[in-house]
């Protein structure tokens, strides 16, 4: 509670912000630490030395510039999926359909990438990316329709569209768009004009990462500095209030879904045009789900999505090195990730115990 007697509001303000930053920082540190401790225990129990393992993990993620660049590249799709999730969650739209939107976006980008010849790079690349964005965005429309018109919560329908999307793209690569020469189920290879340019010789890092970084700030700007973003956030905070203030609640829901799907589709387009070079069946092992987790880790803040994605990418990239050097299986990382997510969800821990303390204080004084 703030009361009149505060003498130097600015000082209090500073102290408060600083205090919150510090608590948040410690909070994340604690979560990270606990996650790693659980991983360490597991590694130790399996008869390996946790410290060497973690050192190798570290080296694998950041050990040299190549690895660092690969980690960054790896985070590209995670960032975009994380942003997609963040926009939806900020608007309180529980879009569980990220995975499907990713596949659809990727497929659209791939089709434009291999089937539209004769364009210069400068047109072909944006066209591919745009196709991904549009396809990913449009894929959310049936869900939004049910939500707006018939009041069906988006969760289950968006989940259903995941599988429809994944199976549909699988059908496309198995039948009409199959490349018989490919060593796996995939579309034909994209034309060179559709590939995102790389900028470090020998690394996969491409302008997709730069675009993703730009998108982080763009989405941040959009959500926090524009009036439409403001609408989305207010609707997310409290739809009743937004309605009574005269904001377009339904439009905001549709828009949040469109942007969310568009960003995720963008992610799909980036990984196809920047990395794989063709659409592969089941290329994603849960980038969409990872994106949701990243968004939650970042408390649905676009700026937080960046470090959280880097963290995820570093874990994944480092795990390869950890396994090849110390023999600790990569799957440990999966456990660490799961544990961290549990701690993040249980961030309420802090509030829970704080609440108990309060209760205790109340009862003891009263």
């Amino acid at each position, binding site marked *: 509670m703030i009361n009149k007697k505060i003498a130097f509001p600015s000082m209090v303000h500073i102290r*408060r*912000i600083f205090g*919150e*930053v510090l*608590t*948040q*920082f410690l909070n*994340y*540190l604690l979560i*990270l630490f606990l996650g790693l401790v659980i991983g360490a225990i597991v590694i130790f129990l399996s008869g390996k030395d946790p410290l060497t393992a973690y050192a*190798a993990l*570290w*080296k694998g*993620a*950041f*050990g*040299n*510039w*190549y*690895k*660092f660049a*690969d980690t960054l590249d*790896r985070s590209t799709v995670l960032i975009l999926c994380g942003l997609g999730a963040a926009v939806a969650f900020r608007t309180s739209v529980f879009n569980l359909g990220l995975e499907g939107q990713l596949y659809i976006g990727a497929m659209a980008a791939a089709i434009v990438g291999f089937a539209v010849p004769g364009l210069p790079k400068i047109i072909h690349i944006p066209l591919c990316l745009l196709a991904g964005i549009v396809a990913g965005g449009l894929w959310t429309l049936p869900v939004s329709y049910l939500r707006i018109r018939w009041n069906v919560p988006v969760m289950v329908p968006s989940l259903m569209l995941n599988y429809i999307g994944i199976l549909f793209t*699988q059908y496309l690569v*198995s039948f009409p768009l*199959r490349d*018989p*020469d*490919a*060593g*796996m*189920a995939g579309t034909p*290879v994209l034309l060179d004009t559709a590939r995102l340019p790389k900028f470090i*010789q*020998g*690394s*996969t890092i491409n302008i997709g990462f730069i675009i993703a970084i730009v998108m982080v700030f763009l989405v941040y700007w959009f959500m926090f500095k524009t009036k439409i973003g403001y609408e989305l956030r207010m609707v997310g905070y409290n739809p009743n209030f937004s309605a009574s203030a005269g904001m377009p609640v339904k439009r905001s829901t549709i828009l949040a879904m469109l942007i969310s799907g568009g960003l995720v589709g963008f992610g799909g387009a980036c990984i196809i045009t920047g990395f*794989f*070079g*063709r659409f*592969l*069946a*089941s*290329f994603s*092992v849960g980038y969409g789900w990872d994106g949701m987790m990243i968004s939650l880790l*970042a*408390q649905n*803040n676009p*700026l*937080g999505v960046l*470090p*959280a994605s880097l*963290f995820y990418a570093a874990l994944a990239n480092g795990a*390869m*090195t950890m*396994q*090849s*050097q110390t023999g600790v299986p*990569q*799957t440990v990382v999966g456990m660490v990730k799961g544990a961290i997510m549990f701690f993040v969800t249980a961030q309420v821990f802090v509030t829970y115990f704080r609440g108990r303390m309060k209760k205790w204080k109340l009862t003891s004084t009263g």
Partner: protein
Amino acid sequence: MKRLSNVLGLLLLVAIVLSACAPTATPTAVVTEAPVVATEAPATAIPPTAVPPMIALVPAGRTGTEGFMFLAGEGYKKAAAEFGFKEIILESMVAEEWERNVRTASQDGANLVIAVGSTMQDAVKNVGVDFPNTKYVLVDSYIGGDNVQGLISQEQEGTFLAGVLAAQMTVLKDVENMNPDKVIGFIGGMDIPVIHRFLSGLQQGVAYIDPTIKIEVAYVGSFADPAKAKELALSMIENQKVDIVYSVAGSFGDAGVFEAVAEKGVYGIGTDVSWDEKVPGHVLISVLKHTDVAVYNAIKGYLNGEFKAGEVKYGLASGVMDITDMSVIGDLVPQAIKDSVFKAKQDIIDGKIAVNRPLR
């Protein structure tokens, strides 16, 4: 205020993490993993003065899960022990890591990268362009490149023999659960060229005995879906009177198929490694694919300075493709049939029988 502080907190954490990483990124840091400096005495194949080469194995999955990948690993390890280079095995969990691992090995300065699996073809192609001085060996596929050697096992030669055996077995009447219908089954992991080579050989082998025998073909759509593979096999056995199932569905998938085979009491033919002992009494024969030999030879060739870009074919003659001796199945397969299989094998080696390789 809360959200700003969240972000700042998270950023602060990352900043610290990154700053902590900085020293390891500088060259002065202790880097133990780079096997640039040899500690042990070089083995015979390497001239004493030369720096031992860096050779990495990058399977398109995990060596423990796939038969031919496992074998590739065995061949690699054998070569490593013999020629004295450090083992670097980069396994991948997800599709994204196929290329990442090939690249990581190349970035770390590997002289030779052995990529196992036809799914690796894009990866090798993409990375090979970026590292022209690194040599690549691609097991199971070849799609061009001056520094790429494709090890193409002549699977069709091996499966030809399986076809010869199956065609004669499927019409036997006195074998339990073997029906007189002229139908056998083929279950492939995916509809891709390497699997087509298996299928083509089987078809040619069957036709060599009896062109009227029908082969039911189905693809699981994945190399890691035992449930679906099993269900496909069950359906074939129950509905299409299939009594012999040839399975190339990956180790997961094969396990599923042979479960169905054992459950229904019919017969199967294994791939890559010997399944004869794993499902005794039900696997007639296994078509062996000694990737270990191919990989070992490739490494040896490289070390001897004989690396040649392009396709290298391994057939029955090289010993890479082979079949089990049918001793586990025992008398269930009449000696005459066994002999005909062995004879066909010799004929192929001698060039008396030509087995065609499909274009795709």
